């Protein structure tokens, strides 16, 4: 085990104001279960879970309320005891509607423990799933546990972890990379987690190493988190095998999967649909790793997470462990409300987060932050013509010609944007961040990507329909 400086530096990147001091010294607080939880069936990437409860049902903490619905999908469990008020479409942070189970947690269930309803045991305070000894448990058992614990990537995208930890035949994981960069401004949830729960992260690493067949481990942390690096160094003392803590330079978007792989092991992930496993890497957020440790050792599924509630409008910024499904309004109330009226509410960080229209939206397994910004902190500009200064292309970590792509999309020339590799855009926002003409470059790239995806889906559907038609 040793600590090294990042050996590779990717091109581009920007230095936004981090504003992490607002919440970085606030220890993680566990929030009491709010009176109402809104548990979305779409907390992860892939097919939404299939809801298996109905209004009027009593649910217990840890009970499955949404079944895995396809290969790229994750099951959903009730984060607390209560009565299902309704199952309805609710708006998520990204604006889309998804089925959600609304749970009244003030109504206590009276459900006898049966083999069909093992979750009822939780009402008595026992573990939800039987704890496993990772040293003796088989790889398959551990993998199954990750799946039944409902774990998905907690860094933002929410990719099903069990799928990631089970590479397809012929592909081997050589490097397990832990993402502790947390390069998004304001967010300190991962920082607190590394500081306070470093031994859990070590346990998670040992379990994941076993599942993945003992790959080398790289723990990537930005240099602005020396306390977290020290805590990890202490926790990982004496670990066997090839394990390194890689100190990354402070640069946004250091936390991007592709750039982290490059910064730590110098490998370049090819264009989509290639995945990190194609270059022998699996990247997991530190929160996910801790969740795996909890799921195996304690039998505790992923029912909640640490979310940073910050911004200059919050009375007291905090790092809160809250059940997934807690409404933003409850998180804000737990922080003592607002000291000034917020002009913008952001789910996530300022670079890639979603501005939301309401605080009635619930948290999910991927809600890393909730920011409330006053008007002083909100930038409103009208965009001007591109002056070709080149700041966007110099900032682009994907080395794209952002300026020309944005102009092509404005002219509805999606084909040109596609030819300029717009699909590799990671939507990090570095281009728009530095644009002196305040052009919405990231948004235009997103528009092109959505348009291309829609076209691809239509082509696929057409091909499928053609295949179904019997040949004469």
């Amino acid at each position, binding site marked *: 085990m040793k600590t090294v400086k990042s050996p590779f530096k*990717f091109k581009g990147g*920007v230095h*936004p104001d981090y504003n992490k001091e607002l919440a970085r010294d606030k220890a993680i607080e566990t929030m009491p279960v709010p009176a109402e939880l809104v548990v979305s069936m779409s907390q992860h990437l892939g097919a939404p879970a299939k809801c298996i409860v109905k209004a009027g049902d009593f649910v217990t903490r840890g009970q499955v309320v949404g079944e895995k619905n396809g290969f790229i999908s994750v099951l959903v469990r009730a984060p607390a005891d209560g009565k299902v008020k309704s199952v309805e479409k609710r708006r998520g942070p990204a604006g889309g509607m998804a089925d959600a189970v609304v749970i009244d947690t003030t109504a206590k269930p009276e459900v006898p423990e049966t083999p069909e309803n093992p979750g009822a045991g939780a009402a008595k305070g026992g573990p939800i799933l039987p704890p496993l000894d990772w040293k003796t448990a088989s790889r398959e058992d551990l993998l199954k546990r990750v799946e039944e614990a409902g774990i998905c990537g907690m860094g933002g995208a929410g990719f099903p972890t069990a799928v990631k930890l089970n590479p397809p035949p012929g592909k081997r994981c050589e490097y397990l990379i832990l993402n502790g960069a947390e390069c998004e*401004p304001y967010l300190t949830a991962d920082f607190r987690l590394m500081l306070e729960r470093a031994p859990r992260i070590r346990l998670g690493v040992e379990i994941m190493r076993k599942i993945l067949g003992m790959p080398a481990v790289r723990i990537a942390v930005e240099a602005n988190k020396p306390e977290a690096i020290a805590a990890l160094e202490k926790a990982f003392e004496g670990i066997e095998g090839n394990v390194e803590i890689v100190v990354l330079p402070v640069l946004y978007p250091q936390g991007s999967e*592709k750039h982290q792989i490059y910064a730590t092991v110098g490998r*370049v*992930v*090819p*264009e989509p649909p*290639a995945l990190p496993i194609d270059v022998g890497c699996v990247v997991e957020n530190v929160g996910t790793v801790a969740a795996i440790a909890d799921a195996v050792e304690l039998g505790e599924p992923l029912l909640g997470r640490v979310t940073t509630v910050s911004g200059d409008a919050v009375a007291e910024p905090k790092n809160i462990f809250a059940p997934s499904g807690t409404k933003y309004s409850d998180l804000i109330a737990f922080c003592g409300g607002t000291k000034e*009226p*917020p*002009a*913008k509410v*952001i789910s*996530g960080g*300022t*670079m890639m*987060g*979603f*501005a*939301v*229209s*309401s*605080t009635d939206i619930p948290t999910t397994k991927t809600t890393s932050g909730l920011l409330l*910004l006053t008007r002083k902190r*909100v*930038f*409103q*500009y*009208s*965009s*001007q*013509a*591109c*002056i*070709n*200064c*080149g700041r966007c*292309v110099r900032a682009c*970590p*994907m*080395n794209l*010609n952002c*300026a*020309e792509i944005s102009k092509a999309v404005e002219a509805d020339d999606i084909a040109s944007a596609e030819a*300029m*590799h717009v699909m*590799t855009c990671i*939507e990090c*926002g*570095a281009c728009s*961040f*530095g644009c*002196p*003409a*305040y052009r*919405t470059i*990231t*948004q235009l790239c997103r528009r092109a990507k959505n348009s291309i995806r829609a076209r691809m889906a239509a082509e696929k559907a057409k091909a499928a329909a053609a295949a179904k038609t019997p040949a004469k």
Partner: protein
Amino acid sequence: MKPKETAEHYILSSSPHAHAKTGVSRIMLDVLIALLPTTAAGVWFFGMRAVFVIATCVATCLLTEALCRMAMRRESTVGDLSAVVTGLLLALNLPSGIPLPMAAIGSVFAIAVAKQVFGGLGMNPFNPALAARAFMLISFTGPMTTWLKPVSRCCGGTCGAAPDAMTTATPLAAMKTMFAADAATGATPHATGAIPSFWDMLIGNMPGCIGEVSAIALAIGAAYLLWRKVITWHIPVAFIATVYVYSLIAGGAPAYAQVLTGGVMIGACFMATDYVTSPTFGKGKLVFGVGCGLLCMLIRQFGSYPEGCSFAILIMNALTPLINRFTQPKAFGAK
């Protein structure tokens, strides 16, 4: 696109929700700050006359910009300061003796014809100040090639006097003949008085356009732009290095004299680095800079004008879209 407010009055907009907060006007302000030393040097060497030329150009450019935007029924862009930069750059590229009405006509051409006709800042294919300079050189060849001797003091006496009383040739005219001259005479060009001393060329004590004479003042301005990250090193370095190397190979006047006289310094640092009309990527910028230097020297050696800097940049402006096309970077992870 104006973000809209919702029932709960939260502003909705697409990420990112943070900005570096450096706008176009701040960049233009930086360029103006960077031009201060050479402007001061121009006024020092050419007197009040230079002040009048600068004031005429800046005022006419601003007025033309405002009128054009009004006529086009578009929002005013006077505030982005780009018209001030164009006006100042044009003035700095004019001889101090230029009649003020001619300077005003050139300014109108720069903004109306070279910039707003194409849709304003960001749309113009040619550097507006240089396009105007070329237009004036062709239209008013006499006044545009009549140079006043620099004065060491700013005084009312010189600017009131008849310009032709002090006209002179720029060192470039002398240097042009040196390409063909026999180098065996033994006398250095400085000693024969054909070109100014190295020191005079460095500080700018020689005939020329208002803002092009003082290499040291221009270098200070360029250093400021580099420090502020307004420009990158590629174009100035490629341009100046090409001029230097070409002169070494071609012989004639000392290579440093080719760099320090005429428009090379102001062209490499302030005109060729114009965002809108130069390539976007580092590699393209290098190609652009080398092209500018090469064309500039070819015109100086073989062309009918003693100076080729502005034409070189204008020709390279025309090639910019093509250079951009062939210097596209490879996307991270692309084959």
